[in-house]
């Protein structure tokens, strides 16, 4: 990694920091332009130029008109962040010892040079980055895989993407449902047996790596009871164990957050007021307490999504799930630069999309937060 490349990363970080100080008027149009750009590049991979352009413009118009300023600010920050991250990933891959052609039985440097030209993998990471980005924008492709002969990266990730997405979403939903129920019950009956039992369960969830939980599930449900398949992918039965293993650590954190949120909200005056005017307890809890429990959980969803992806690297390997995590790990170990960059782009794009959804949910649940930020600007 040379000096100019480190300067490049620092420049990128500077731009990121600079977005904080953009005047409010600039945010909305800038965000719309960025949404159009991101959507165009993403759609271009699977659709024709015309379709991609039309849909991208439509999305940009919707974002311009309807997204709250909090979400737009996030777009303005995350879009350049995506570029910085992809560049940093390329630099790290190049800085790692070895290269994708090191194992080939090609002694002659001309052969390696020819291969490098063919795959668009020059000696310099910066050149590689620019070739990659140009190919992505102009041709709408994530490039050829270097190690999997004759396949494009989007062909490899195409089938893997829905697998990882459904596993991750299912695990997140499971974690939220399970964690909320556990946390709210514990918070409502503070210091009761139910409280202590739920929190003990949560502590166990935090204290075991997900692959230990996963191995336990395999032994119990697949080997002893024989009710679920050991590994692989296909039907709903294959989804259950990996999703549970992936969900439990997050469910534990969510349960703790929901508990303290519930405990806090139950001490509020408006709860006492609701009770005093004779509302049934179920109404008090359902209408008021639940909101207090949900808000801290929603703000944890962004990091929870990241943690789910992180965990899925391991869980996918354990259960033989053909998802993107496997491709990332394989690509990183084999130095398949284009596969690593491709998975990086898809993961980061997913994170951006997910964070936008969380922002929307947050603004909807607690309008004060969206307003406050807007008012303070």
């Amino acid at each position, binding site marked *: 990694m040379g000096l100019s490349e480190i300067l490049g990363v620092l420049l990128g970080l500077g731009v990121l920091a600079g977005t904080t100080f953009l005047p409010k008027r600039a945010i909305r149009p800038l965000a719309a332009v960025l949404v159009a750009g991101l959507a165009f590049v993403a759609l271009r991979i699977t659709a024709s130029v015309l379709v991609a352009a039309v849909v991208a413009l439509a999305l940009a118009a919707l974002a311009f008109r309807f997204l709250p300023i909090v979400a737009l600010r996030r777009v303005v*920050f995350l879009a350049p962040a995506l570029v910085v991250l992809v560049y940093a990933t390329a630099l790290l891959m190049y800085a790692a010892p070895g290269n994708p052609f090191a194992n080939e039985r090609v002694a002659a440097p001309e052969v390696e040079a020819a291969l490098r030209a063919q795959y668009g993998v020059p000696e310099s990471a910066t050149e590689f980055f620019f070739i990659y980005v140009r190919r992505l924008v102009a041709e709408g492709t994530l490039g050829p895989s270097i190690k999997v002969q004759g396949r494009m990266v989007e062909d490899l990730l195409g089938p893997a993407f829905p697998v990882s997405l459904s596993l991750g979403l299912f695990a997140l939903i499971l974690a939220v449902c399970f964690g909320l129920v556990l946390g709210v019950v514990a918070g409502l009956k503070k210091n009761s047996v139910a409280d202590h039992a739920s929190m003990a369960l949560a502590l166990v969830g935090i204290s075991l790596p997900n692959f230990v939980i996963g191995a336990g599930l395999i032994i119990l449900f697949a080997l002893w009871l024989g009710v679920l398949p050991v590994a692989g992918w296909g039907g709903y039965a294959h989804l259950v164990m990996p999703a549970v293993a992936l969900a439990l650590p997050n469910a534990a954190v969510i349960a703790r957050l929901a508990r303290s949120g519930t405990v806090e909200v139950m001490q509020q005056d408006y709860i006492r007021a609701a009770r005093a005017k004779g509302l049934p307890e179920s109404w008090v809890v359902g209408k008021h307490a639940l909101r207090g429990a949900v808000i801290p959980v929603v703000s944890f969803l962004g990091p929870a999504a990241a943690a789910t992806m992180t965990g899925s690297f391991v869980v996918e390997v354990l259960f033989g799930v053909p998802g993107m995590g496997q491709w990332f790990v394989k690509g990183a170990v084999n130095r398949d630069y284009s596969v690593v960059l491709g998975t990086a782009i898809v993961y980061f794009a997913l994170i951006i999309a997910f964070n936008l959804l969380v922002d929307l949910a947050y603004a909807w649940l607690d309008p004060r937060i969206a307003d406050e930020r807007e008012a303070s600007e």
Partner: protein
Amino acid sequence: MTERGRSVWAEAGRRIVQNRMALLGAVMLAVIALACLLGPVVLDLDPHLTRPELRNRPPSADAWFGTDTLGRDLFARVLVGGRASLLVGIVATLVSVVVGVAVGMVAGFYGGKTDEILMRLVDFLYGLPYMFLVILVMLLFSETARGEMFPVFVALGLVQWLTMARIVRGQVLALRRREFVLAAELLGASDARVLFRHVLPNIAGVVIVYATLMVPSVIILESFLSFLGLGVALSWGQLVSEGVAVVNPVHSYWWLLFWPSLFLGLTLLSLNFLGDGLRDALDPKARE
């Protein structure tokens, strides 16, 4: 008759001793750490000695935890592996405490744009699948230091400081407006003096609490790396993943999975007990 004032620390000590779970965690942790540290020396155990005639033996009087697929004594391996896991947990945590406290103090103390920029970056990094970064950083050392602990310290220290930075920033932000800090500044103390003499001692308790809670998550991350074949050569994570690898319907070598998982789980549980207890003792405001 005057009653002697008790210091914050003495008060905290009293509270932690009264907290049974925290005490249990501390004792369990001490027992496990001592066993890992002294056990192999006292009992003269060799975790690398292969005995092909004793492959995959269940626990017995000879090998308490059984033997693995190469006939190595699992008891020795669990104890020696524990050293690596605990050391990784502690050192990577120290790295991230130093980085996190530094960033958090600067952000909270100087405030304004410095704060805004730093916290933006922290927020952003917080939302990334950090395993991504960890794996890429581990690759940098894949030839020079494969299976050693140093790369793990660096890679995990790099991603774990974020929570600490956030917490420290919040604390410093509150301390910043307190009279004794203002007084020190008015008396002409330098920023460094104010930070180290007045601010740091007041956030020490909170830092200790969250450092304790960080150790288990570092140990879990190391076990992820081991599972993917990128971690320390002999650690609990490595042993658990060896145990996972032999889970199959034909024969059951349950001890290969059970013992390392038990030690890993008990250690993480005690660290969490201890951390929660410390939080109740040192950071009473965080208690519901």
